[in-house]
């Protein structure tokens, strides 16, 4: 038998070195498809698209710096006598965890820096992630086909909170220990299973000797794995959907306008990673964060005044502070030989309402508007007044809770009564969102009117001219068609009356939907239509004309200001 020469498919002969390398890799693992898919993939460019990136880069920095910290941190609650170089605590009994956290701060070169970088990165991660979510919300980027990615994002937000909390609880100092004690109190408030949950969590009574190592495995393994998994899913979906883009000339629902990944976008985004790293390193170098050596090892008896959690946990702590436990009656209710700890449960349920709205908003909006179309063009927030107003209400609701977590610091810094701070915040908790909703909706409608004004009458140039018959007018410069298109290319949905279902019946739910739709859309400003613009142009000399243009004199006009 003759040898069969296996014919390799080498018809393609690469000429350049790059080509040869590409050829080698592609014939082994088939990477050319990926390069073809991503190499020149178009990403729209806008500064508001940056926050998600910041969050992702912060997460990478968290993983790098966190890995460094694990090399020294000892997640044990065993009692040791401190013998490090921080003199004030020498000879003090403490947990091995706290002792090793001190060692990282004082006895590992650069350890303090890495600890601070890790903490600052966590704060930046949650900050960027939150702003990114607000951007997505206010521009309507969560609409079909991206609803599921919005949910993935919400899960990332929740996970981020848990990641942060489990992380800052690890050093086992007085501050973090009291945070855990609060968690114990919250767990115990859960009906039926709360006491068991607490005992399972702490391995017996608070604080026990197991908690730190349990939190450690959750913090360095379970949560990061989930975070990375969800982030991968999140990015995968971004690729599947392609990025959204802001409305503007040349941008349609069917295209993406922007820069190719290679080289421009990759350079900008890649360079931006280093900038984010630089910012975090700068913070770690110059701003002390979580100076655990000042707090001392955890002891159940002492606590400092002015304790606060990291900001992203603040809304929970603030909610706890805001609910009046004994007004107008005690919110600890004994019933059927059991205790309902409503003083703790209710504020958490109130905070939970916000989270529930957050997760379900894409479906709420879709239900009200019956809009099931694909949306790749974003809304300018003003062009969705109902959504922007609802978001503002949510922000106020959240912020009041977060601010309440600093109620004591507000009282001491501004020399006001602690009780008054609480009363004002309690009022704002419930009425602030309503006020915000009304005001922000009005602002949006006003901004839309301003846009109409610009389209119909052009930009005020500041040139005042006198007409031959003596009248003074200010010349208005009409918008160019590109600028104008940005201001007119939006939809302004009208209230959708209740629709009968397939059986011809109008259900109760449908009536509610119609009522909400009316509430959302009855005040609305429509985009300028070409006919309206035409009318504005020819609506008499000197009064409504817009076509002034560069020449202030001539046939024209401008628009009079009386």
């Amino acid at each position: 038998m003759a040898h069969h020469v296996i014919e390799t498919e080498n018809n393609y002969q690469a000429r350049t070195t790059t080509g040869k390398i590409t050829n080698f890799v592609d014939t082994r693992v088939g990477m050319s498809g990926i390069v073809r898919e991503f190499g020149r993939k178009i990403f729209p460019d806008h500064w508001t698209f940056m926050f998600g990136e910041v969050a992702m880069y912060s997460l990478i920095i968290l993983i790098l710096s966190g890995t460094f910290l694990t090399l020294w941190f000892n997640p044990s609650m065993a009692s040791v006598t401190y013998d490090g170089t921080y003199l004030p605590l020498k000879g003090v009994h403490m947990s091995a965890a706290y002792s090793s956290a001190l060692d990282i701060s004082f006895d590992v070169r650069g350890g303090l820096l890495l600890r601070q970088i890790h903490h600052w990165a966590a704060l930046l991660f949650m900050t960027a992630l939150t702003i990114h979510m607000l951007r997505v919300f206010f521009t309507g980027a969560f609409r079909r086909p991206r609803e599921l990615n919005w949910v993935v994002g919400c899960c990332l937000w929740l996970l981020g909170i848990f990641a942060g909390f489990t992380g800052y609880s690890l050093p086992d100092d007085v501050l973090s220990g009291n945070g855990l004690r609060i968690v114990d109190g919250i767990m115990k408030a859960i009906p039926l299973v709360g006491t068991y949950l607490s005992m399972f969590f702490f391995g017996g009574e608070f604080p026990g000797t197991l908690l730190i190592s349990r939190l450690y495995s959750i913090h360095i393994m379970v949560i990061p794995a989930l975070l990375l998994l969800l982030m991968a899913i999140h990015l995968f979906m971004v690729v599947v959907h392609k990025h959204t883009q802001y409305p503007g000339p040349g941008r349609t629902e069917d295209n993406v306008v922007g820069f190719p990944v290679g080289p421009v976008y990759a350079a900008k985004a890649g360079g931006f990673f280093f900038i984010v790293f630089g910012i975090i390193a700068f913070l770690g170098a110059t701003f002390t964060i979580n100076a655990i050596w000042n707090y001392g090892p955890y002891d159940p008896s002492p606590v400092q005044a002015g304790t606060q959690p990291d900001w992203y946990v603040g809304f929970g702590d603030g909610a706890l502070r805001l609910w009046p436990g004994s007004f107008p009656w005690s919110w600890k209710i004994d019933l059927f030989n059991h205790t309902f700890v409503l003083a703790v449960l209710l504020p958490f349920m109130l905070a939970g309402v916000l989270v529930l709205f957050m997760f379900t908003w894409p479906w709420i909006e879709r239900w009200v508007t019956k809009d099931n179309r694909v949306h790749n063009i974003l809304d300018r927030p003003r062009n969705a007044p109902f959504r922007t107003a609802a978001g503002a209400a949510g922000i106020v609701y959240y912020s009041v809770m977060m601010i309440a977590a600093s109620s004591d610091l507000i009282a001491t810094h501004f020399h006001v009564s602690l009780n008054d701070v609480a009363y004002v915040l309690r009022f704002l908790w419930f009425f602030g969102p309503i006020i915000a909703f009304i005001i922000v909706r009005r602002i949006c409608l006003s901004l839309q009117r301003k846009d109409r004004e610009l389209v119909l009458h052009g930009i005020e140039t500041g040139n005042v001219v006198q007409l031959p018959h003596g009248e003074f007018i200010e010349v208005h410069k009409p918008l160019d068609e590109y600028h104008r298109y940005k201001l007119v290319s939006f939809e302004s949905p009208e209230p959708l009356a209740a629709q009968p279902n397939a059986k011809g019946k109008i259900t109760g739910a449908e009536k509610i939907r119609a009522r909400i739709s009316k509430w959302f859309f009855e005040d609305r400003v429509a985009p300028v239509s070409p006919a309206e613009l035409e009318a504005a142009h020819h609506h008499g000399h000197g009064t409504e004309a817009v076509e002034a243009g560069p020449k202030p004199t001539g046939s024209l006009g401008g628009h009079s200001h009386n």
Partner: protein
Amino acid sequence: MGNHRDSTEEVSSVAVTSLEASKEKFPDPGLPPHSPRLTDVDPKQNKKAERHVTLLFVISILGALLFWFAYFGIRVEGNFYDVTNPENNHLLRLQNLFLGLGIALSMFGIGIGIVHWARALMPDHEMVEMRHPVSSEESRAEAQDIMETIIDESGIKRRPLLRNTLIGSIILAPLTFVTLFRDLGPANPSLLKHTLWDQGVRLVRDPSGTPIKAADVTIGSAYHVLPENLQSLTHETGYVEEKAKAVVLLMRINPAELNISEDRKDWNVDGILAFSKVCTHVGCPIALYEQRTHHLLCPCHQSTFDAANECEVIFGPAAHPLPQLPIAVDEEGYLVAQSDFHEPVGPAYWERAKHVNEMAGEAN
């Protein structure tokens, strides 16, 4: 804005619509013409941008050198926060500062350099790519057919016995692993009922551990107090857990200012009162005592209790008073507990009402 007269009626808060004209849209003018950058038209500017990027990369290199200088050049040895030798603290700060600035510069240099390169020198023509539907309807229909074939071939619909037993086993199998978590901790809520306090246990100062003579407690003073028997416990035998429940605040208030119910008349010693220090809200230690108003304030969530009035809640999120520890004086004049607390200390929990009833029974 002046009083523009618009072609449409504008009435505040009423829909501004343009009736049938609204159906008509402006045509999309397409992408605006590209305007070249300075670096595109002026070779000098182009060269200048290149020099800037180079400079930024050099700054990055210098940043790395700064890092190594701080790491190897600054020697920090010996103790920190030593009042006799503050030099070390400064060195640590300096080292931390320069290590961080070194990393920051090396990162900023690369980052800003690359971004500047991209913005000034790489092409800035916006490009257009078409989107495609996430999935086509044919593909969906085909996938549905495949799924139905799979289900059909598996026979899961035609064999309900197989299906039901499979569902049963799939539900139960993971529960075996869930069960493994049972031993995470004891499921024994009654651990929360009792503390180390008992009849005759002396009140000692925290942290010195010295007993307290009733005569030494002047009106207006306050003490952090522990049970004397806590000292016999070690970390391994539950010192922290017991301390977390047994911490007590002791204060003396002029008996004339006290408002005490009949059944607690003999729980204080001439106005010396002992209350659990664990907040009944979510368990923080109550650390602040305002002597003039007899108010106890929890620094975590600002629950406020009135010590002169059996620690009733007067403000904040706590929903029930701090438990009072009945105290007396022993034959040597030291303060001792008459018994344990008569209710569980700390935050409320599901079984608390039951425990309160049981403890009332035990006390009688």
